[in-house]
């Protein structure tokens, strides 16, 4: 009994796939070229534009006339027939829209924004020819010419108008904000039994075994490339998904980067892909806490850390400098967290560390900032230090590598100079002396 049901499912799936591919090839033809002979009629054929009912009817009539004018079996005729079908579909959709008060294409409805499962869905215009979009809910192509479609402004979730009501996936933006942290265990698999043999997202039953017998043979004959097993594992969540929720997209997995410095992309579910995509630039990884040893193992990372520490030192000057504020110097960085702190990294930062882009970026920032502090700005220069041990006139800044900073009184000396006086900070000495004197005076007074 079960077997039969499963087979039926398979057949349904495979027939879906056929229509799907047919549709795709049809649209390819449609999109790729309007036959040259028909270019003159382009404007009357309502190509890829939001036409109203009248315009569509007119275009349908025009199209019909043109079909009769063109030779049988000619390329133009084929194109026109397909176009006629499309126009009729569009007219149908338009009529439906006019009847449905909530339909987005119904201009009187005013429904161009919907909020479902945390998604902020916005009605989208027609797609450009070049790009295909698939519905994140039903996985079907979005025929933007005939189908109204929506996209989430926060996470990029795209779906048909007709699919809105049944959306299952929570908005990735909401999830990322609520969780505020990546999954940091590498592929935390719980096993199919714990998932009750259901897709982690849509709860569709997962079919483990390939169908046997004649159905299997036929299936292989028709679709040799299609894997029979419907089950796909997401490397990010460690959970199993059906092929509607897992499209075999790949992404770099944060946990693998943090623990193994493994920057290769792995297969992930669509839900994970969307989360990883929108969080790529968010500083969510506290590398210092999660895996401090990485800094000693990855040379580039160590350099990045050093530059970020230097930026911290420079920032101290820039935040209190009037001129730097006027020049918006601190805002010139497109990744503010690089300057805000030294510990937090975004996934993109780590990828760019490997490629060297981040180092270049940080080098430039350090260069810009130190030119301001050390050369251009009178006030910042004035806020530098003069090593009172050697009394050299050269201004010493705490963020340079030769500087020693007293952790008690914040005085700055040359490292060599403080070593010469056996690490005894002269200012601390004076402070101590003063306190002593004060307490003596107080005692005498009493």
């Amino acid at each position, binding site marked *: 009994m079960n077997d039969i049901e499963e087979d039926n499912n398979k057949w349904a799936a495979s027939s879906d796939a056929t229509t799907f591919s047919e549709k795709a090839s049809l649209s390819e033809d449609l999109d790729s070229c309007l036959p040259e002979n028909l270019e003159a009629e382009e404007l009357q054929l309502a190509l890829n534009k939001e036409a109203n009912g009248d315009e569509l009817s007119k275009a349908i009539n025009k199209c019909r006339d043109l079909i009769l004018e063109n030779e049988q079996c000619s390329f133009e005729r084929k194109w026109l027939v397909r176009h006629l079908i499309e126009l009729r579909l569009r007219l149908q959709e338009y009529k439906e829209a006019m009847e449905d008060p909530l339909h987005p294409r119904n201009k009187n409805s005013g429904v161009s924004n919907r909020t479902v499962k945390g998604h902020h869905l916005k009605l989208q215009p027609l797609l450009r020819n070049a790009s295909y979009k698939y519905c994140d809910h039903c996985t079907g192509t979005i025929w933007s010419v005939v189908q109204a479609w929506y996209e989430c402004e926060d996470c990029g979730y795209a779906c048909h108008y007709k699919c809105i009501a049944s959306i299952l996936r929570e908005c990735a933006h909401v999830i990322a904000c609520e969780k505020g942290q990546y999954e940091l265990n590498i592929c935390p698999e719980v096993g199919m039994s714990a998932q009750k043999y259901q897709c982690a997202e849509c709860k569709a039953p997962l079919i483990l075994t390939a169908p046997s017998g004649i159905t299997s043979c036929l299936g292989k004959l028709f679709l040799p490339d299609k894997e029979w097993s419907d089950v796909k594992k997401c490397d990010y969540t460690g959970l199993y998904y059906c092929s509607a929720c897992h499209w075999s997209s790949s992404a770099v997995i944060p946990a693998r980067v943090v623990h193994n410095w493994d920057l290769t992309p792995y297969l992930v579910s669509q839900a994970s892909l969307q989360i990883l995509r929108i969080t790529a630039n968010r500083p969510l990884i506290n590398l210092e806490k999660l895996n401090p040893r990485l800094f000693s193992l990855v040379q580039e990372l160590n350099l990045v850390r050093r530059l970020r520490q230097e930026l911290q030192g420079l920032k101290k*000057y820039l935040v209190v400098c009037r001129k730097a504020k006027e020049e918006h110097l601190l805002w010139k960085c497109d990744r503010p967290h690089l300057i805000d702190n030294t510990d937090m990294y975004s996934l993109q930062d780590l990828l760019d560390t490997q490629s060297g882009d981040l180092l270049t970026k940080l080098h430039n920032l350090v260069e810009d900032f130190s030119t301001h502090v050390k050369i251009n700005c009178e006030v910042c*220069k004035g806020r530098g230090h003069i090593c009172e041990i050697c009394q050299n006139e050269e201004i010493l*800044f705490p963020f340079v590598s030769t500087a020693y900073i007293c952790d008690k009184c914040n005085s700055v000396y040359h490292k060599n100079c403080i070593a010469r006086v056996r690490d005894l900070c002269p200012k601390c000495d*004076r402070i101590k002396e003063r306190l002593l004197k004060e307490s003596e005076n107080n005692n005498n007074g009493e």
Partner: protein
Amino acid sequence: MASRKKILLKVIILGDSSVGKTSLMNQYVSRKFTNQYKATIGADFLTKEVTVDDRTVTLQIWDTAGQERFQSLGVAFYRGADCCVLVFDVTAPNTFKSLDSWRDEFLIQASPRDPENFPFVLLGNKVDLEPRAISAKRAQQWCQSKNNIPYFETSAKEGLNVEQAFLAIAKNALAQQNSTIDLYNEFPDQIKLTNTQKPSGSGDSCAC
């Protein structure tokens, strides 16, 4: 000789937090006063042109942070100062007590050529307020003990004595600068060594 050259006098205002350093400067430079307290973060300077003894000079007045927690940055700007203004609050005895350490720290960090005679000016601010904690006499005594520092009682709020105080500051600063210039001019064909790079203290060039 120096009269034709534009003269820039560097003045530094020091004192505990909330004694009125910024208010004094603002009152002097732009004649404005606000009752709101806003801690100075870091340091900044304002400039004002004044005429002292028939010469036009530019005063570069450095206002500093009195609060300890905003003092983490350095004080390289003390170097080359021509006059140091110490400010205390006549109603807050602690601000008077810390004058000594402000003065000592300044002399160490600025390391002027002749520390004994470096011009300081003391301002007892907020004389419009009651009750007074530090009498004029006590302040005067302190000034005498420090090589006769000029003393002014001011009120940044009322603008009382501010102009006079800064005029005295400018005069003292000018005198200080002239004395330094005289020092340079003792030998007409001097070779100035001060601006050339000394071997840096970082030890790279150290032979040992």
